[in-house]
Every structure is written in structure tokens, then in C-alpha cells.
């Protein structure tokens, strides 16, 4: 077996496990935990397009989740538009907003960029909380929006069981992962990496760093907004503080950093590590001592940054590499190895 065959078969196996998991996991609670795991992996992968590859640290992505959720939900509630259409419109709107924000902010250095994204996201959240009606649109201020149960159908993006949601978010995750893979191997990906590390040098070599970053930002915001619609249809209720707060923005960045930002598998590995930990410590420890699960969360973050500042993906990839070399050496006849 060659290395390429090994990689392909393992990836296929992982995909099969992901698609087959609901056969084993039938409890709605656990299915919901899995859905949220993929949801966060998806969000972080979308964040990674700009936060990982472009070398900046945006900390206000929850605002784009909010744009997605509000666009599709208001369109559904007031105009009867299918959430699927609202989802795409929300994505486009988020991409436009992302570019408008990116135009002035990408000139800034790291710390200013961070603070700017936070201020932008928090400012929008506070405004949404203060607005009942935006023109004809019913925003409903801090109370948020409730999506009434209609008939379960694909068109209404409402289903009887959790299962369709599971497959929707899984497919969304695979699409955005494939896109990340494609970008990381394209010219734009190399330009982004160069611009993120040495903007001046990249610019001197004729790379239009600003345009590449704006494209990455637009894509990232578009996909982030799609997650907003998904969340709205999954929960059927959301409010500004819960959906657009700093907590979500920070958690996305945490997952990316623990997994390894700028890598393809990083967001998935980060979500695989942090989400179950977060859910189970919350379920089992928060009754005992409120806040304990977040202390653990913070400590893990600090420890990973102390010992593996590049995130967990790099050491895991190295371990897999060693293992794969051993396997391929064991099973291939002499002369074909390496």
C-alpha cells in the first residue's frame, strides 16, 4: 500500500464514519451535540479562510452569523421566502459587509485589527438590541426572533428529527473544507500566506495582498452567514446577545488556535477536542461548581498555547506521518517504499 492509498482510504473511512454515525447515535441529545460539533467545525473553517491564511485575528465573526440568521428569518417570517433563499441572500449581504469592513481595516496592524473587529461586532449587536423596526423589517430588539413551527419539509428548512440537520451541516462542512483545500493549493492561497507573513515583501514581489485578503474575507463572511441560517432553523429561536455576542467570536478563534490556524484539519481537530469537552464538562461540572468548565477551557487554551503554540494539528500530523511511514514500509515490497 502506498502512502497515497493509505491517505485516501483513511479519509474515505473518516467520511464513512461521519455519514454513518447517526446509525449508532440515535439519542437526540447526542445527535444535537454532534450537530453542534460540526457546526463549530464549520464556523471555524470559514473563519480560518481569513483568520488562518491571511495572518490576521478577527474577533468579531459572530456578527456575520447574526447577519445570516436575521436575513433568512426576517424574510421567512415577513415575506414567506424559503430559508434556503434567505440563506444565500444573507451570505451575499455578509460578504458585502465583510468587504466594506475589510477595506479600511486590512491596512491595520494586528492589535488594532483585533480591537476594530470587536468594536464593530459589539456595536452592531448593541444596535440590533435597540432596534424594534428597521424600516418595514421587524427586528424585535433584545427579545430576538422566534420561528414558528410549520409543516416539516425541505422547503421550509424544518424537519421532524435531528437527522436532516446532521446531514446538512455535515455536507456544509465538507464543502467549506474542500474549498479551503482548493484555496490552500491555489495561487491565492500562496499569496495570502505570503501577505500574512511578510506583507511588504509580498507587495514588493507584485502580489496584491489587499485584494487577496478582501477575497478571503468575502468568502469567509459568506460561509459564516450560512451557519447563521442553519443555527436559526435548528434552534427556531435566537436573540442578539446569544447569537452575536463576543463569546461566540472568541470560541471560534479558540477552536482555530487550539486546532492550528492556517491548516485545513485544524478547525476540525480543534472542534473535536474542545466541543465534547465543553459539552460534557458543562453537563457534569456546572451543577457542582458554576464556572468550573470555563476554567478548564481557559486552562487548556493556555496550556496548548504554552506547549504547542502552533496548535495540535502539527504534532498530530507528524505522529501520523511516522505511523504511516511504518505501515507503508511494512506492507510494501522492497524498492517500492518511500
Amino acid at each position: 500500500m502506498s502512502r497515497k492509498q493509505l491517505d485516501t482510504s483513511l479519509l474515505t473511512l473518516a467520511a464513512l464514519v461521519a455519514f454513518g454515525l447517526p446509525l449508532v447515535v440515535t439519542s437526540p441529545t447526542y445527535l444535537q451535540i454532534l450537530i453542534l460539533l460540526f457546526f463549530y467545525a464549520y464556523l471555524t473553517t470559514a473563519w480560518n479562510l481569513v483568520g488562518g491564511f491571511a495572518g490576521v485575528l478577527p474577533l468579531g465573526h459572530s456578527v456575520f452569523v447574526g447577519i445570516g440568521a436575521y436575513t433568512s428569518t426576517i424574510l421567512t417570517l415577513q415575506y414567506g421566502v424559503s430559508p434556503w433563499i434567505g440563506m444565500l441572500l444573507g451570505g451575499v449581504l455578509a460578504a458585502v459587509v465583510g468587504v466594506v469592513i475589510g477595506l479600511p481595516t486590512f491596512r491595520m496592524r494586528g492589535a488594532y485589527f483585533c480591537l476594530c473587529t470587536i468594536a464593530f461586532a459589539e456595536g452592531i449587536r448593541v444596535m440590533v438590541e435597540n432596534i424594534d423596526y428597521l424600516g418595514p423589517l421587524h427586528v424585535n430588539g433584545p427579545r430576538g426572533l422566534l420561528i414558528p413551527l410549520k409543516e416539516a419539509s425541505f422547503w421550509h428548512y424544518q424537519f421532524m428529527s435531528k437527522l436532516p440537520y446532521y446531514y446538512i451541516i455535515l455536507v456544509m462542512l465538507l464543502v467549506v473544507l474542500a474549498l479551503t483545500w482548493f484555496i490552500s493549493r491555489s495561487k491565492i492561497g500562496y499569496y495570502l500566506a505570503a501577505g500574512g507573513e511578510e506583507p511588504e515583501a509580498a507587495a514588493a514581489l507584485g502580489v496584491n495582498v489587499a485584494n487577496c485578503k478582501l477575497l478571503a474575507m468575502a468568502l469567509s463572511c459568506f460561509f459564516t452567514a450560512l451557519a447563521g441560517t442553519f443555527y436559526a432553523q435548528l434552534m427556531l429561536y435566537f436573540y442578539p446577545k446569544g447569537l452575536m455576542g463576543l463569546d461566540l467570536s472568541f470560541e471560534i478563534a479558540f477552536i482555530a488556535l487550539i486546532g492550528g490556524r492556517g491548516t485545513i484539519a485544524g478547525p476540525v481537530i480543534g472542534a473535536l477536542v474542545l466541543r465534547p469537552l465543553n459539552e460534557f464538562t458543562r453537563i457534569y461540572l456546572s451543577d457542582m461548581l458554576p464556572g468550573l468548565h470555563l476554567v478548564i477551557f481557559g486552562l487548556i487554551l493556555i496550556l496548548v498555547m504554552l506547549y504547542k503554540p502552533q496548535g495540535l494539528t502539527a504534532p498530530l500530523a507528524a505522529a501520523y506521518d511516522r505511523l504511516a511511514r511504518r505501515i507503508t514500509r511494512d506492507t510494501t515490497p522492497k524498492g517500492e517504499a518511500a
Partner: protein
Amino acid sequence: MTAVIQATLNGIMMGAMYGLTALGLTLIFGVMKVVNFAHGSLLMVGMFSAYWLIKLTGIHPYLALLIVPPILYFFGYSLQDLVIKPVFKAERQVREPLTVIIVTTGVWYVLDNLALMLFGAEYRTVRTAISNKSFALGQFIISIPKFSGFVVAVATAVGLALFMRKTKIGMALRATSLDREAANLMGIDQYKVYNIAFGLGTAIAGIAGCVLIPFYYVYPSVGVVFDIRAFIIVVLGGLGSIPGALLGGLVIGLIESVFSQFMASTWTEAIIYAIFLVILFVKPSGFFGNKQDW
């Protein structure tokens, strides 16, 4: 009109508290080029330290000013030495130490939630002899704890500025802030300077905690209120600038207090964010900031 002037006075005094918080943040940023997301949590630690000290020993609230800041100095010093320095060293080659920002965020999560575990979520306040005292200035009423806070804030800013100008350590801090490589070559231990800067920043958060506690509630996530304000203030005044932090604090306090006379207080928050973004786009270096920094 009277109401507006009264609101202005209140705004100046509350603004001085924001400025005092921002002072520690701007000191740490100026020297280390790191936005310390844990700063609000360090303020919370300062407030809880003052709270328990006053509650358990019954000393006069302002005596805590002699005890809490030194404790906080060592807390900040060790925190930087044990937790932040190793990450900083690992990122030595990087001009923008973004991982360090995330580590300070981790510290924020740990501190806030440790406080939640230990003390619960309730709002606490110390009722002391001076808590409800006030004096009249013409027809305007000025609360004594708030006024004392204002005086302490100004004194701290002046003291810090003198310290930075006149002492050897202050010069080392400024040298490192200007050019860490050159400072290293001149025999300044960069990481020791960072420890001192972080310790001083934390001590200032301790001072703020002591003067806030007679009139402000303390709860585990109280830092977030001051954190966001402090970020806005340091950008407004210029990241790294001491007078900028105080002036920025006064401006934000004024906006908050005067605007809330005319509209819902949640809208004043939105206005603050909007002003912040406008400043970032128009003049990112702030009132007194260094152009090279942004």
C-alpha cells in the same frame, strides 16, 4: 442645564475611573505591544481583593490602597513571568504576537470563572462610612468616593508619568517600548522589563479596584464592562500614551454620562462604539499615539 452640568461632573469622575483602568492597559501595550485581554479580569481581582480586605478587617477603604496594589504587582509580575513570557519567547520572531493575545484571553476566562466558583455570581458592595457621603459645589452634588477616585486617578497618572521620566526602570521601560532589540543590546533584560510593566499595569488595576469598591458593585464578570471601555479609550488616546489614557477616559465618561441624559443608556453604548470606529478609520494613532505603532 443644571442636569447637564451635573451629568458632566459625574461623567468626568466616572471617566477618570475608565481612564485609570486604561492606564494599566496602555502601559502594558506600550512596552510589550500586546493587547492584554485579561486586564478587566485583573481589575476584578483588584476589586475583590479590596472587597475582602475591607470586609474582613474593617479597615478604612483607602488604607487598602497601601496593601492591594503591591499584592497585585506581584500577581501580575508572576503571571507574566510564568504564563505569558514563555509564549512570547516562542513567538520571538513574529512582529505581531497574536498568540499572546489569545493567552491573555485564556487568563481572562480562568480568572473570571475562578471568581465565579469561589464567590458566586451575586453583586457585592462594601458599605463604608464614606459610601453615601457627598459635598455640594454650588448647586451641584459631588459624591466623596467618586471624587476621591478622580483625585487618585489623576495622581496615579502623574505619578506614572514621573516614574517613566525620572527613574532608571522607567527609562528601561521606555527604551524597550521604542526598540526592544536595541534595548537588549544596551544590556536591558527585555523579559524582566516585561514582567515589571505587567506588574505595574496590574498594580494600577489594583489601585482602580480600591477606589471603585466604595461605590461600585463587584461581581466576577465586572471586568468586561471596563475592558471594552479601556480598549476604546487606549485607541482614542493613542495606544501606549499615558496622558492619552486619562484624556480618553474623560471623553468616554463624558459621552456616556451626557448622552444618557437624552437617550436610552444602551444607545450611548452604540454611540461609543461608533465613535471608536470613526477614530480608528480617521486617525488610528489617536490623540497622542505613536504613528509607527498601528
